[in-house]
Protein backbone atom coordinates (compact mmCIF):
# COMPACT_ATOMS: atom_id res chain seq x y z
CA UNK A 1 0.00 0.00 0.00
CA UNK A 2 1.37 3.40 -0.92
CA UNK A 3 1.85 5.62 2.05
CA UNK A 4 2.32 9.30 1.40
CA UNK A 5 4.78 11.14 3.53
CA UNK A 6 3.15 13.39 6.12
CA UNK A 7 5.39 16.26 5.00
CA UNK A 8 3.96 16.16 1.46
CA UNK A 9 0.41 16.05 2.78
CA UNK A 10 1.22 18.97 5.06
CA UNK A 11 2.60 20.90 2.08
CA UNK A 12 -0.57 20.33 0.08
CA UNK A 13 -2.67 21.27 3.08
CA UNK A 14 -0.74 24.54 3.43
CA UNK A 15 -1.08 25.37 -0.28
CA UNK A 16 -4.79 24.57 -0.18
CA UNK A 17 -5.22 26.57 3.02
CA UNK A 18 -3.47 29.61 1.52
CA UNK A 19 -5.58 29.46 -1.65
CA UNK A 20 -8.80 29.03 0.30
CA UNK A 21 -7.77 31.91 2.56
CA UNK A 22 -7.10 34.15 -0.44
CA UNK A 23 -10.38 33.18 -2.08
CA UNK A 24 -12.36 33.69 1.13
CA UNK A 25 -10.72 37.01 1.82
CA UNK A 26 -11.61 38.14 -1.69
CA UNK A 27 -15.31 37.48 -1.36
CA UNK A 28 -15.98 38.03 2.33
CA UNK A 29 -17.54 41.41 3.11
CA UNK A 30 -15.39 44.11 4.69
CA UNK A 31 -16.66 47.06 6.67
CA UNK A 32 -15.24 50.43 5.70
CA UNK A 33 -17.12 53.66 5.05
CA UNK A 34 -17.31 54.54 1.34
CA UNK A 35 -15.63 51.26 0.39
CA UNK A 36 -16.73 49.87 -2.96
CA UNK A 37 -16.77 46.33 -1.59
CA UNK A 38 -18.61 47.09 1.65
CA UNK A 39 -22.23 45.93 1.38
CA UNK A 40 -23.06 47.59 4.69
CA UNK A 41 -25.11 50.75 5.17
CA UNK A 42 -22.18 53.13 4.84
CA UNK A 43 -20.40 51.23 2.12
CA UNK A 44 -20.78 51.95 -1.60
CA UNK A 45 -21.11 48.48 -3.05
CA UNK A 46 -24.38 49.34 -4.79
CA UNK A 47 -23.12 52.26 -6.81
CA UNK A 48 -19.80 50.46 -7.28
CA UNK A 49 -21.47 47.88 -9.51
CA UNK A 50 -22.11 50.43 -12.25
CA UNK A 51 -18.99 52.55 -11.97
CA UNK A 52 -15.31 52.48 -12.75
CA UNK A 53 -13.14 52.44 -9.67
CA UNK A 54 -10.38 54.98 -9.40
CA UNK A 55 -7.58 53.46 -7.33
CA UNK A 56 -5.34 56.51 -7.72
CA UNK A 57 -6.35 60.06 -8.60
CA UNK A 58 -3.44 60.13 -11.03
CA UNK A 59 -5.49 57.76 -13.17
CA UNK A 60 -7.81 60.70 -13.85
CA UNK A 61 -5.27 62.01 -16.32
CA UNK A 62 -5.88 58.95 -18.50
CA UNK A 63 -9.66 59.33 -18.48
CA UNK A 64 -11.79 61.53 -20.68
CA UNK A 65 -12.92 64.25 -18.21
CA UNK A 66 -15.60 65.78 -20.43
CA UNK A 67 -17.50 62.51 -20.43
CA UNK A 68 -16.87 61.65 -16.81
CA UNK A 69 -18.56 62.22 -13.49
CA UNK A 70 -16.22 61.72 -10.53
CA UNK A 71 -17.80 60.81 -7.19
CA UNK A 72 -15.64 61.51 -4.19
CA UNK A 73 -16.68 60.44 -0.71
CA UNK A 74 -14.18 60.91 2.09
CA UNK A 75 -14.02 60.93 5.85
CA UNK A 76 -10.62 62.60 6.10
CA UNK A 77 -9.03 65.70 4.51
CA UNK A 78 -7.58 65.37 1.02
CA UNK A 79 -3.90 65.90 0.35
CA UNK A 80 -2.62 68.81 -1.67
CA UNK A 81 -1.54 66.51 -4.50
CA UNK A 82 -5.00 64.95 -4.65
CA UNK A 83 -6.65 68.37 -4.72
CA UNK A 84 -4.47 69.48 -7.59
CA UNK A 85 -5.43 66.31 -9.51
CA UNK A 86 -9.10 67.16 -8.88
CA UNK A 87 -8.60 70.69 -10.10
CA UNK A 88 -6.87 69.46 -13.22
CA UNK A 89 -9.71 67.01 -13.87
CA UNK A 90 -12.37 69.71 -13.36
CA UNK A 91 -10.51 72.20 -15.53
CA UNK A 92 -10.58 69.69 -18.36
CA UNK A 93 -14.37 69.51 -18.22
CA UNK A 94 -14.93 66.80 -15.64
CA UNK A 95 -17.84 67.03 -13.25
CA UNK A 96 -17.07 66.28 -9.59
CA UNK A 97 -19.61 65.39 -6.93
CA UNK A 98 -18.30 65.43 -3.38
CA UNK A 99 -19.74 64.41 -0.02
CA UNK A 100 -18.37 63.16 3.25
CA UNK A 101 -17.23 64.43 6.62
CA UNK A 102 -16.84 68.11 7.37
CA UNK A 103 -13.06 67.82 7.66
CA UNK A 104 -12.85 66.37 4.15
CA UNK A 105 -15.18 68.98 2.67
CA UNK A 106 -13.44 71.81 4.46
CA UNK A 107 -10.10 70.90 2.87
CA UNK A 108 -11.71 70.91 -0.58
CA UNK A 109 -13.62 74.17 -0.02
CA UNK A 110 -10.53 75.93 1.23
CA UNK A 111 -8.47 74.70 -1.72
CA UNK A 112 -11.01 76.13 -4.14
CA UNK A 113 -11.24 79.44 -2.23
CA UNK A 114 -14.35 79.05 -0.12
CA UNK A 115 -14.24 79.74 3.60
CA UNK A 116 -17.04 78.18 5.58
CA UNK A 117 -17.83 77.13 9.11
CA UNK A 118 -19.68 74.16 10.55
CA UNK A 119 -22.98 74.86 12.30
CA UNK A 120 -24.32 71.47 13.27
CA UNK A 121 -26.09 68.35 12.16
CA UNK A 122 -29.45 68.79 10.48
CA UNK A 123 -32.33 66.80 11.92
CA UNK A 124 -35.64 66.70 10.17
CA UNK A 125 -38.36 65.10 12.32
CA UNK A 126 -40.92 65.39 9.53
CA UNK A 127 -39.33 64.76 6.14
CA UNK A 128 -37.23 61.70 6.73
CA UNK A 129 -37.29 58.05 5.74
CA UNK A 130 -38.37 56.69 9.15
CA UNK A 131 -34.97 57.67 10.38
CA UNK A 132 -34.12 61.26 11.39
CA UNK A 133 -30.66 60.77 9.81
CA UNK A 134 -32.09 59.97 6.36
CA UNK A 135 -33.35 63.38 5.44
CA UNK A 136 -35.42 64.17 2.35
CA UNK A 137 -34.12 67.23 0.52
CA UNK A 138 -35.30 69.05 -2.55
CA UNK A 139 -33.01 69.95 -5.44
CA UNK A 140 -34.11 73.15 -7.16
CA UNK A 141 -31.93 72.81 -10.20
CA UNK A 142 -32.90 69.21 -10.97
CA UNK A 143 -36.48 69.60 -9.73
CA UNK A 144 -36.33 66.39 -7.78
CA UNK A 145 -36.15 65.14 -4.20
CA UNK A 146 -33.44 62.88 -2.90
CA UNK A 147 -32.59 61.31 0.45
CA UNK A 148 -29.26 62.12 2.02
CA UNK A 149 -27.73 60.55 5.07
CA UNK A 150 -26.78 62.69 8.07
CA UNK A 151 -26.66 66.16 6.51
CA UNK A 152 -25.05 69.08 8.31
CA UNK A 153 -25.36 72.82 7.97
CA UNK A 154 -22.49 75.11 7.11
CA UNK A 155 -22.22 78.84 6.75
CA UNK A 156 -20.24 80.20 3.82
CA UNK A 157 -18.29 83.10 5.23
CA UNK A 158 -16.40 84.32 2.20
CA UNK A 159 -15.29 83.24 -1.22
CA UNK A 160 -12.25 83.99 -3.30
CA UNK A 161 -12.73 86.29 -6.26
CA UNK A 162 -14.17 84.49 -9.27
CA UNK A 163 -15.61 81.69 -7.18
CA UNK A 164 -19.36 81.31 -7.23
CA UNK A 165 -21.16 79.32 -4.56
CA UNK A 166 -24.77 78.52 -5.27
CA UNK A 167 -26.99 76.45 -2.95
CA UNK A 168 -28.86 73.86 -5.00
CA UNK A 169 -30.63 71.75 -2.39
CA UNK A 170 -32.47 72.51 0.84
CA UNK A 171 -33.89 70.61 3.75
CA UNK A 172 -37.55 71.07 4.71
CA UNK A 173 -38.67 74.07 6.79
CA UNK A 174 -39.22 71.72 9.74
CA UNK A 175 -35.59 70.78 10.07
CA UNK A 176 -33.33 72.16 12.74
CA UNK A 177 -29.63 72.16 13.45
CA UNK A 178 -28.63 70.03 16.38
CA UNK A 179 -26.06 72.53 17.60
CA UNK A 180 -26.07 70.91 21.02
CA UNK A 181 -25.44 67.39 19.72
CA UNK A 182 -28.04 65.38 21.63
CA UNK A 183 -30.26 64.20 18.76
CA UNK A 184 -33.10 66.34 20.16
CA UNK A 185 -34.34 69.83 19.71
CA UNK A 186 -33.13 72.35 22.27
CA UNK A 187 -34.40 75.85 22.78
CA UNK A 188 -32.40 78.23 20.70
CA UNK A 189 -31.53 75.73 17.94
CA UNK A 190 -32.58 77.19 14.62
CA UNK A 191 -35.56 75.70 12.82
CA UNK A 192 -35.31 76.50 9.14
CA UNK A 193 -34.68 75.14 5.68
CA UNK A 194 -30.93 74.77 5.35
CA UNK A 195 -28.85 74.47 2.20
CA UNK A 196 -27.34 70.98 2.02
CA UNK A 197 -25.79 71.12 -1.46
CA UNK A 198 -23.78 73.75 -3.30
CA UNK A 199 -22.62 74.22 -6.83
CA UNK A 200 -19.19 75.82 -6.86
CA UNK A 201 -18.08 77.32 -10.14
CA UNK A 202 -14.60 78.65 -10.80
CA UNK A 203 -14.40 79.45 -14.50
CA UNK A 204 -14.74 76.15 -16.27
CA UNK A 205 -14.37 74.21 -13.03
CA UNK A 206 -17.63 72.90 -11.60
CA UNK A 207 -18.06 71.06 -8.32
CA UNK A 208 -21.19 69.81 -6.60
CA UNK A 209 -20.77 69.50 -2.86
CA UNK A 210 -23.27 67.82 -0.57
CA UNK A 211 -22.83 68.63 3.09
CA UNK A 212 -23.88 65.15 4.13
CA UNK A 213 -22.17 61.94 5.16
CA UNK A 214 -23.94 59.94 2.51
CA UNK A 215 -25.55 60.57 -0.86
CA UNK A 216 -24.78 57.38 -2.79
CA UNK A 217 -23.98 55.17 0.15
CA UNK A 218 -25.88 51.88 0.30
CA UNK A 219 -28.42 53.08 2.87
CA UNK A 220 -29.79 55.81 0.58
CA UNK A 221 -28.60 54.79 -2.87
CA UNK A 222 -31.90 53.28 -3.97
CA UNK A 223 -33.68 56.63 -3.37
CA UNK A 224 -31.13 58.50 -5.46
CA UNK A 225 -30.72 56.31 -8.53
CA UNK A 226 -32.85 58.66 -10.61
CA UNK A 227 -30.83 61.68 -9.55
CA UNK A 228 -27.61 59.89 -10.49
CA UNK A 229 -28.96 59.14 -13.95
CA UNK A 230 -30.02 62.75 -14.44
CA UNK A 231 -26.69 63.98 -13.16
CA UNK A 232 -24.42 61.81 -15.22
CA UNK A 233 -26.53 61.79 -18.41
CA UNK A 234 -24.18 59.98 -20.75
CA UNK A 235 -21.10 60.48 -18.64
CA UNK A 236 -19.03 57.60 -17.32
CA UNK A 237 -19.20 57.41 -13.53
CA UNK A 238 -15.85 57.20 -11.77
CA UNK A 239 -15.87 56.18 -8.13
CA UNK A 240 -12.92 57.36 -6.10
CA UNK A 241 -11.35 54.61 -4.00
CA UNK A 242 -7.86 56.05 -3.85
CA UNK A 243 -8.16 56.74 -0.12
CA UNK A 244 -7.64 52.99 0.50
CA UNK A 245 -4.05 52.96 -0.72
CA UNK A 246 -2.82 53.06 2.87
CA UNK A 247 -4.87 50.03 3.82
CA UNK A 248 -3.06 47.23 2.00
CA UNK A 249 -5.58 44.44 2.54
CA UNK A 250 -8.55 46.51 1.42
CA UNK A 251 -6.55 47.81 -1.50
CA UNK A 252 -5.59 44.24 -2.47
CA UNK A 253 -9.27 43.33 -2.44
CA UNK A 254 -9.98 46.21 -4.77
CA UNK A 255 -7.25 45.07 -7.14
CA UNK A 256 -8.49 41.48 -7.36
CA UNK A 257 -12.11 42.54 -7.73
CA UNK A 258 -13.85 44.42 -10.47
CA UNK A 259 -17.31 46.01 -10.54
CA UNK A 260 -18.48 42.81 -12.24
CA UNK A 261 -16.96 40.40 -9.77
CA UNK A 262 -13.61 38.80 -9.13
CA UNK A 263 -11.06 39.85 -11.70
CA UNK A 264 -10.24 37.53 -14.56
CA UNK A 265 -6.51 37.56 -13.93
CA UNK A 266 -6.94 36.66 -10.26
CA UNK A 267 -9.12 33.65 -11.06
CA UNK A 268 -6.71 32.59 -13.78
CA UNK A 269 -3.74 32.74 -11.43
CA UNK A 270 -5.53 30.66 -8.80
CA UNK A 271 -6.66 28.13 -11.43
CA UNK A 272 -3.15 27.92 -12.83
CA UNK A 273 -1.65 27.35 -9.37
CA UNK A 274 -4.24 24.64 -8.75
CA UNK A 275 -3.39 22.95 -12.02
CA UNK A 276 0.31 23.01 -11.21
CA UNK A 277 -0.36 21.57 -7.75
CA UNK A 278 -2.49 18.76 -9.22
CA UNK A 279 0.12 18.05 -11.89
CA UNK A 280 2.92 17.88 -9.31
CA UNK A 281 0.74 15.65 -7.17
CA UNK A 282 0.22 13.25 -10.07
CA UNK A 283 3.92 13.30 -10.87
CA UNK A 284 4.74 12.52 -7.23
CA UNK A 285 2.34 9.58 -7.25
CA UNK A 286 3.85 8.24 -10.46
CA UNK A 287 7.34 8.58 -9.01
CA UNK A 288 6.36 6.52 -5.99
Amino acid at each position, binding site marked *: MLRKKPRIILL*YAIVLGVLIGL*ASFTILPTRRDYYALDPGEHGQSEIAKSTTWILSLQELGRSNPINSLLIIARDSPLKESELSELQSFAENGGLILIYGSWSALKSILEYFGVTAEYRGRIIDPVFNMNNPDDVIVYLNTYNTSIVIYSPYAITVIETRKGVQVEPIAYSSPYSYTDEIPNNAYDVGEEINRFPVAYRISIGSVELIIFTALGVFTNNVFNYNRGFLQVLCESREILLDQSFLRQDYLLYFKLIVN*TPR*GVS*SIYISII*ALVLMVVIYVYRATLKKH
Partner: protein
Amino acid sequence: MYIELHLRNIKLSRLITSGIITLAIVLYVFNTSIQDAIYVLLLIFVFIPLTLFGDQHVAFATSFISSCLISYGRNYLFLSLSSAISLLGFLTLYRESSDNIANSFYTVILLCTPLYILNPLTLVQVSIILLVYLLLAIRENLRLGKSTVEVYQDKSTIYLDEQAKYFVLIKCPGAFKYKILESGKVVEEGSTVNEIKAELSRDFEYVGLNELHVGFFLEDLKGLAKLSYGPYTLKYIVLLRTSTMVKRAEKILEKYMSYISTPKVHKVVIGGLLQGETGGSRGVKGIGQVGLIGKGALGGEESGPKSTTSEGLHKPLPVTEPTGPERSWRKKRKDFFMVSNCTLHIKGDRDVPL
Protein backbone atom coordinates in the same frame (compact mmCIF):
# COMPACT_ATOMS: atom_id res chain seq x y z
CA MET B 1 4.79 11.71 -37.01
CA TYR B 2 4.60 12.06 -33.24
CA ILE B 3 1.60 14.36 -33.47
CA GLU B 4 -0.08 12.06 -35.98
CA LEU B 5 0.39 9.11 -33.63
CA HIS B 6 -1.17 11.09 -30.81
CA LEU B 7 -4.05 12.27 -32.93
CA ARG B 8 -4.93 8.68 -33.79
CA ASN B 9 -5.03 7.79 -30.13
CA ILE B 10 -7.42 10.54 -29.08
CA LYS B 11 -10.59 9.10 -27.66
CA LEU B 12 -13.98 10.37 -28.75
CA SER B 13 -14.93 11.58 -25.30
CA ARG B 14 -11.87 13.79 -25.18
CA LEU B 15 -12.64 15.23 -28.59
CA ILE B 16 -16.18 16.06 -27.51
CA THR B 17 -14.97 17.62 -24.26
CA SER B 18 -12.44 19.79 -26.08
CA GLY B 19 -15.07 20.73 -28.64
CA ILE B 20 -17.47 21.92 -25.96
CA ILE B 21 -14.69 23.87 -24.27
CA THR B 22 -13.88 25.58 -27.57
CA LEU B 23 -17.57 26.33 -28.12
CA ALA B 24 -17.79 27.84 -24.64
CA ILE B 25 -14.79 30.09 -25.37
CA VAL B 26 -16.40 31.33 -28.57
CA LEU B 27 -19.71 32.00 -26.83
CA TYR B 28 -17.88 33.72 -24.02
CA VAL B 29 -16.29 36.13 -26.45
CA PHE B 30 -19.65 36.97 -28.00
CA ASN B 31 -21.57 37.24 -24.73
CA THR B 32 -19.27 39.20 -22.48
CA SER B 33 -16.70 41.87 -22.75
CA ILE B 34 -13.50 40.17 -23.83
CA GLN B 35 -11.51 42.42 -21.51
CA ASP B 36 -13.36 41.03 -18.52
CA ALA B 37 -12.37 37.47 -19.24
CA ILE B 38 -9.30 37.62 -21.42
CA TYR B 39 -6.98 35.81 -18.97
CA VAL B 40 -9.56 33.18 -18.12
CA LEU B 41 -10.13 32.43 -21.80
CA LEU B 42 -6.40 32.27 -22.47
CA LEU B 43 -5.97 29.77 -19.65
CA ILE B 44 -8.83 27.61 -20.86
CA PHE B 45 -7.32 27.71 -24.33
CA VAL B 46 -4.00 26.49 -22.90
CA PHE B 47 -5.80 23.65 -21.12
CA ILE B 48 -7.32 22.22 -24.31
CA PRO B 49 -4.14 20.36 -25.43
CA LEU B 50 -3.81 18.90 -21.94
CA THR B 51 -7.41 17.71 -22.13
CA LEU B 52 -6.71 16.08 -25.48
CA PHE B 53 -3.29 14.56 -24.92
CA GLY B 54 -2.69 14.41 -21.17
CA ASP B 55 -3.15 11.23 -19.19
CA GLN B 56 -6.66 10.52 -17.92
CA HIS B 57 -6.07 12.15 -14.56
CA VAL B 58 -4.61 15.34 -16.02
CA ALA B 59 -7.36 15.44 -18.65
CA PHE B 60 -9.97 15.23 -15.91
CA ALA B 61 -8.26 17.98 -13.89
CA THR B 62 -7.99 20.34 -16.87
CA SER B 63 -11.54 19.74 -18.03
CA PHE B 64 -12.87 20.25 -14.51
CA ILE B 65 -10.92 23.48 -13.93
CA SER B 66 -11.95 24.70 -17.40
CA SER B 67 -15.58 24.03 -16.55
CA CYS B 68 -15.19 25.98 -13.29
CA LEU B 69 -13.75 28.91 -15.24
CA ILE B 70 -16.47 28.78 -17.88
CA SER B 71 -19.17 28.92 -15.21
CA TYR B 72 -17.97 32.45 -14.42
CA GLY B 73 -20.11 33.43 -17.37
CA ARG B 74 -22.92 33.41 -14.79
CA ASN B 75 -25.80 32.42 -16.99
CA TYR B 76 -27.64 29.19 -17.74
CA LEU B 77 -25.89 28.66 -21.05
CA PHE B 78 -22.41 28.66 -19.54
CA LEU B 79 -23.60 26.72 -16.53
CA SER B 80 -24.94 23.97 -18.81
CA LEU B 81 -21.76 23.93 -20.86
CA SER B 82 -19.54 23.80 -17.80
CA SER B 83 -21.61 20.95 -16.32
CA ALA B 84 -21.33 18.99 -19.57
CA ILE B 85 -17.58 19.54 -19.70
CA SER B 86 -16.97 18.41 -16.13
CA LEU B 87 -19.21 15.37 -16.60
CA LEU B 88 -17.44 14.35 -19.82
CA GLY B 89 -14.08 14.87 -18.14
CA PHE B 90 -15.08 12.55 -15.34
CA LEU B 91 -16.46 9.91 -17.70
CA THR B 92 -13.19 10.08 -19.67
CA LEU B 93 -11.32 9.41 -16.45
CA TYR B 94 -13.65 6.53 -15.55
CA ARG B 95 -13.57 4.86 -18.94
CA GLU B 96 -9.91 5.24 -19.78
CA SER B 97 -8.28 4.68 -16.44
CA SER B 98 -7.44 1.13 -15.50
CA ASP B 99 -6.20 1.95 -12.04
CA ASN B 100 -7.59 3.77 -9.03
CA ILE B 101 -9.50 6.92 -9.95
CA ALA B 102 -10.88 7.73 -6.52
CA ASN B 103 -7.63 9.32 -5.43
CA SER B 104 -7.49 11.65 -8.45
CA PHE B 105 -11.17 12.45 -8.18
CA TYR B 106 -11.03 13.47 -4.55
CA THR B 107 -7.78 15.38 -5.03
CA VAL B 108 -9.15 17.49 -7.87
CA ILE B 109 -12.50 18.08 -6.16
CA LEU B 110 -10.79 19.08 -2.92
CA LEU B 111 -8.06 21.24 -4.42
CA CYS B 112 -10.54 23.24 -6.49
CA THR B 113 -12.25 24.51 -3.33
CA PRO B 114 -10.92 28.07 -3.85
CA LEU B 115 -12.75 28.18 -7.18
CA TYR B 116 -16.03 27.21 -5.52
CA ILE B 117 -15.54 29.96 -2.97
CA LEU B 118 -14.88 32.54 -5.67
CA ASN B 119 -17.88 31.41 -7.68
CA PRO B 120 -20.46 29.32 -5.80
CA LEU B 121 -22.16 28.49 -9.13
CA THR B 122 -19.40 25.97 -9.76
CA LEU B 123 -20.99 23.85 -7.06
CA VAL B 124 -23.63 22.88 -9.64
CA GLN B 125 -21.17 20.91 -11.75
CA VAL B 126 -19.48 19.55 -8.64
CA SER B 127 -22.85 18.22 -7.50
CA ILE B 128 -23.47 16.62 -10.88
CA ILE B 129 -20.21 14.70 -11.02
CA LEU B 130 -20.50 13.79 -7.34
CA LEU B 131 -23.90 12.32 -8.10
CA VAL B 132 -22.52 10.31 -11.02
CA TYR B 133 -19.62 9.17 -8.86
CA LEU B 134 -22.06 8.12 -6.17
CA LEU B 135 -24.14 6.08 -8.61
CA LEU B 136 -21.06 4.30 -9.94
CA ALA B 137 -19.86 3.66 -6.39
CA ILE B 138 -23.23 2.16 -5.43
CA ARG B 139 -23.11 -0.11 -8.47
CA GLU B 140 -19.62 -1.31 -7.59
CA ASN B 141 -20.58 -1.75 -3.96
CA LEU B 142 -23.51 -3.93 -4.97
CA ARG B 143 -21.19 -6.03 -7.11
CA LEU B 144 -18.67 -6.43 -4.30
CA GLY B 145 -21.56 -7.25 -1.99
CA LYS B 146 -22.03 -10.48 -3.90
CA SER B 147 -18.54 -11.63 -3.01
CA THR B 148 -17.81 -14.53 -0.69
CA VAL B 149 -14.70 -15.47 1.19
CA GLU B 150 -13.93 -18.97 2.44
CA VAL B 151 -11.00 -19.95 4.61
CA TYR B 152 -9.96 -23.55 5.16
CA GLN B 153 -7.53 -24.65 7.82
CA ASP B 154 -5.29 -27.54 6.75
CA LYS B 155 -4.91 -28.95 10.27
CA SER B 156 -5.15 -27.41 13.64
CA THR B 157 -2.29 -29.27 15.33
CA ILE B 158 1.20 -28.86 13.98
CA TYR B 159 4.74 -29.43 15.12
CA LEU B 160 7.07 -26.57 15.75
CA ASP B 161 9.13 -27.10 12.62
CA GLU B 162 6.06 -27.27 10.41
CA GLN B 163 4.20 -24.44 8.70
CA ALA B 164 0.61 -23.71 9.47
CA LYS B 165 -1.25 -23.82 6.19
CA TYR B 166 -4.61 -22.43 5.28
CA PHE B 167 -6.49 -22.01 2.04
CA VAL B 168 -8.46 -19.03 0.89
CA LEU B 169 -11.15 -18.89 -1.75
CA ILE B 170 -12.46 -15.44 -2.69
CA LYS B 171 -15.30 -15.19 -5.17
CA CYS B 172 -16.64 -11.99 -6.66
CA PRO B 173 -18.37 -11.39 -10.00
CA GLY B 174 -16.18 -9.36 -12.33
CA ALA B 175 -12.74 -7.91 -11.82
CA PHE B 176 -11.57 -6.95 -8.39
CA LYS B 177 -8.51 -6.29 -6.29
CA TYR B 178 -7.88 -8.20 -3.13
CA LYS B 179 -5.59 -8.11 -0.16
CA ILE B 180 -5.10 -10.83 2.42
CA LEU B 181 -3.99 -9.56 5.77
CA GLU B 182 -2.53 -11.44 8.70
CA SER B 183 -2.79 -9.46 11.90
CA GLY B 184 -3.15 -6.26 9.89
CA LYS B 185 -0.16 -6.93 7.60
CA VAL B 186 -0.67 -7.56 3.92
CA VAL B 187 0.64 -11.02 3.04
CA GLU B 188 -0.81 -11.29 -0.42
CA GLU B 189 -2.46 -8.90 -2.81
CA GLY B 190 -3.37 -8.71 -6.44
CA SER B 191 -6.20 -8.37 -8.86
CA THR B 192 -8.21 -11.06 -10.54
CA VAL B 193 -11.49 -11.86 -12.22
CA ASN B 194 -14.36 -13.80 -10.63
CA GLU B 195 -12.35 -15.78 -8.07
CA ILE B 196 -8.98 -16.35 -6.51
CA LYS B 197 -7.63 -19.38 -4.67
CA ALA B 198 -4.65 -18.93 -2.44
CA GLU B 199 -2.64 -21.24 -0.24
CA LEU B 200 -0.88 -19.48 2.56
CA SER B 201 1.41 -20.73 5.25
CA ARG B 202 2.82 -19.28 8.37
CA ASP B 203 5.55 -20.23 10.84
CA PHE B 204 4.92 -20.16 14.55
CA GLU B 205 7.68 -19.63 17.04
CA TYR B 206 5.93 -20.58 20.19
CA VAL B 207 4.78 -23.91 21.48
CA GLY B 208 1.20 -24.16 22.58
CA LEU B 209 -1.92 -22.41 21.34
CA ASN B 210 -1.31 -19.87 18.57
CA GLU B 211 -3.89 -17.64 16.98
CA LEU B 212 -3.77 -16.23 13.49
CA HIS B 213 -6.06 -13.31 12.60
CA VAL B 214 -6.82 -13.29 8.91
CA GLY B 215 -8.62 -10.42 7.19
CA PHE B 216 -9.61 -9.78 3.59
CA PHE B 217 -9.96 -6.52 1.74
CA LEU B 218 -11.74 -6.36 -1.58
CA GLU B 219 -11.83 -3.36 -3.88
CA ASP B 220 -13.01 -2.70 -7.38
CA LEU B 221 -10.35 -1.76 -9.92
CA LYS B 222 -11.32 1.92 -9.99
CA GLY B 223 -11.29 2.28 -6.24
CA LEU B 224 -14.94 3.28 -6.04
CA ALA B 225 -16.03 0.52 -3.67
CA LYS B 226 -14.25 -1.26 -0.86
CA LEU B 227 -15.24 -4.18 1.27
CA SER B 228 -13.48 -5.92 4.10
CA TYR B 229 -14.02 -9.33 5.66
CA GLY B 230 -12.84 -10.50 9.00
CA PRO B 231 -10.61 -10.66 10.83
CA TYR B 232 -11.17 -14.37 11.29
CA THR B 233 -9.23 -16.23 13.94
CA LEU B 234 -7.48 -19.48 13.07
CA LYS B 235 -6.24 -21.48 16.07
CA TYR B 236 -3.23 -23.74 15.87
CA ILE B 237 -1.78 -25.94 18.60
CA VAL B 238 1.96 -26.13 18.14
CA LEU B 239 3.73 -29.18 19.59
CA LEU B 240 7.35 -30.12 20.08
CA ARG B 241 8.72 -33.42 18.85
CA THR B 242 10.49 -35.55 21.57
CA SER B 243 13.81 -35.57 19.74
CA THR B 244 13.60 -31.85 19.34
CA MET B 245 12.87 -31.49 23.01
CA VAL B 246 15.91 -33.57 23.96
CA LYS B 247 18.11 -31.60 21.60
CA ARG B 248 16.92 -28.43 23.11
CA ALA B 249 17.67 -29.65 26.61
CA GLU B 250 21.13 -30.64 25.49
CA LYS B 251 21.75 -27.24 24.06
CA ILE B 252 20.64 -25.60 27.25
CA LEU B 253 22.91 -27.75 29.33
CA GLU B 254 25.83 -27.15 26.97
CA LYS B 255 25.31 -23.50 27.36
CA TYR B 256 25.65 -23.73 31.11
CA MET B 257 28.64 -26.02 30.89
CA SER B 258 30.83 -23.24 29.70
CA TYR B 259 30.32 -21.45 33.00
CA ILE B 260 31.31 -24.36 35.20
CA SER B 261 34.92 -25.22 35.90
CA THR B 262 35.99 -28.80 35.69
CA PRO B 263 34.47 -30.45 38.67
CA LYS B 264 36.63 -32.38 41.02
CA VAL B 265 35.09 -35.60 42.09
CA HIS B 266 35.81 -37.09 45.42
CA LYS B 267 34.90 -40.50 46.36
CA VAL B 268 33.28 -40.72 49.73
CA VAL B 269 32.54 -44.04 51.12
CA ILE B 270 29.57 -44.07 53.29
CA GLY B 271 29.44 -47.17 55.23
CA GLY B 272 31.19 -49.16 52.53
CA LEU B 273 29.64 -51.23 49.90
CA LEU B 274 28.71 -54.77 50.28
CA GLN B 275 30.25 -57.33 48.13
CA GLY B 276 28.73 -57.33 44.78
CA GLU B 277 27.24 -53.87 45.10
CA THR B 278 28.25 -51.41 42.50
CA GLY B 279 28.95 -47.82 43.02
CA GLY B 280 29.12 -44.96 40.65
CA SER B 281 26.62 -43.28 38.58
CA ARG B 282 26.02 -42.50 35.06
CA GLY B 283 27.01 -39.22 33.70
CA VAL B 284 24.28 -37.47 31.97
CA LYS B 285 24.88 -36.47 28.47
CA GLY B 286 26.02 -32.91 28.41
CA ILE B 287 27.17 -32.84 31.96
CA GLY B 288 28.17 -36.34 32.51
CA GLN B 289 31.82 -35.94 32.14
CA VAL B 290 32.36 -38.02 35.14
CA GLY B 291 31.91 -41.64 35.48
CA LEU B 292 32.73 -42.90 38.87
CA ILE B 293 34.42 -46.08 39.48
CA GLY B 294 32.76 -47.57 42.45
CA LYS B 295 34.66 -50.03 44.43
CA GLY B 296 33.54 -52.12 47.26
CA ALA B 297 35.18 -51.18 50.51
CA LEU B 298 36.13 -54.68 51.03
CA GLY B 299 37.93 -54.89 47.76
CA GLY B 300 35.05 -56.63 46.10
CA GLU B 301 34.00 -56.33 42.54
CA GLU B 302 34.65 -53.30 40.52
CA SER B 303 31.77 -51.20 39.86
CA GLY B 304 31.26 -50.64 36.21
CA PRO B 305 32.61 -47.42 34.90
CA LYS B 306 29.75 -45.84 33.13
CA SER B 307 30.67 -42.65 31.64
CA THR B 308 29.30 -40.83 28.75
CA THR B 309 31.46 -38.41 27.00
CA SER B 310 30.81 -34.87 26.43
CA GLU B 311 32.56 -32.37 24.29
CA GLY B 312 35.73 -31.19 25.84
CA LEU B 313 35.82 -33.88 28.47
CA HIS B 314 36.74 -37.21 27.15
CA LYS B 315 38.66 -38.64 29.98
CA PRO B 316 37.11 -39.84 33.17
CA LEU B 317 38.35 -37.90 36.08
CA PRO B 318 40.63 -39.64 38.49
CA VAL B 319 39.08 -40.77 41.69
CA THR B 320 41.19 -39.95 44.68
CA GLU B 321 40.79 -40.20 48.36
CA PRO B 322 41.05 -36.83 49.98
CA THR B 323 44.16 -36.63 51.97
CA GLY B 324 45.13 -34.32 54.79
CA PRO B 325 45.54 -31.04 53.02
CA GLU B 326 42.63 -31.70 50.78
CA ARG B 327 40.38 -32.37 53.69
CA SER B 328 41.10 -28.94 55.07
CA TRP B 329 40.70 -27.40 51.60
CA ARG B 330 37.34 -29.09 51.31
CA LYS B 331 36.20 -27.33 54.39
CA LYS B 332 37.29 -23.94 53.15
CA ARG B 333 36.03 -24.16 49.65
CA LYS B 334 32.39 -23.61 49.06
CA ASP B 335 32.30 -25.43 45.76
CA PHE B 336 32.61 -29.06 46.57
CA PHE B 337 31.36 -32.27 45.21
CA MET B 338 29.81 -34.97 47.23
CA VAL B 339 29.18 -38.37 45.93
CA SER B 340 26.57 -40.47 47.60
CA ASN B 341 25.56 -43.90 46.55
CA CYS B 342 24.09 -42.96 43.26
CA THR B 343 23.78 -39.22 43.09
CA LEU B 344 26.36 -36.58 42.34
CA HIS B 345 25.60 -33.13 43.58
CA ILE B 346 27.58 -30.30 42.16
CA LYS B 347 27.29 -27.35 44.37
CA GLY B 348 28.54 -24.26 42.83
CA ASP B 349 26.78 -21.53 40.96
CA ARG B 350 23.78 -23.81 40.77
CA ASP B 351 22.83 -27.34 41.55
CA VAL B 352 22.49 -29.70 38.67
CA PRO B 353 20.77 -32.94 39.45
CA LEU B 354 22.19 -35.84 37.54
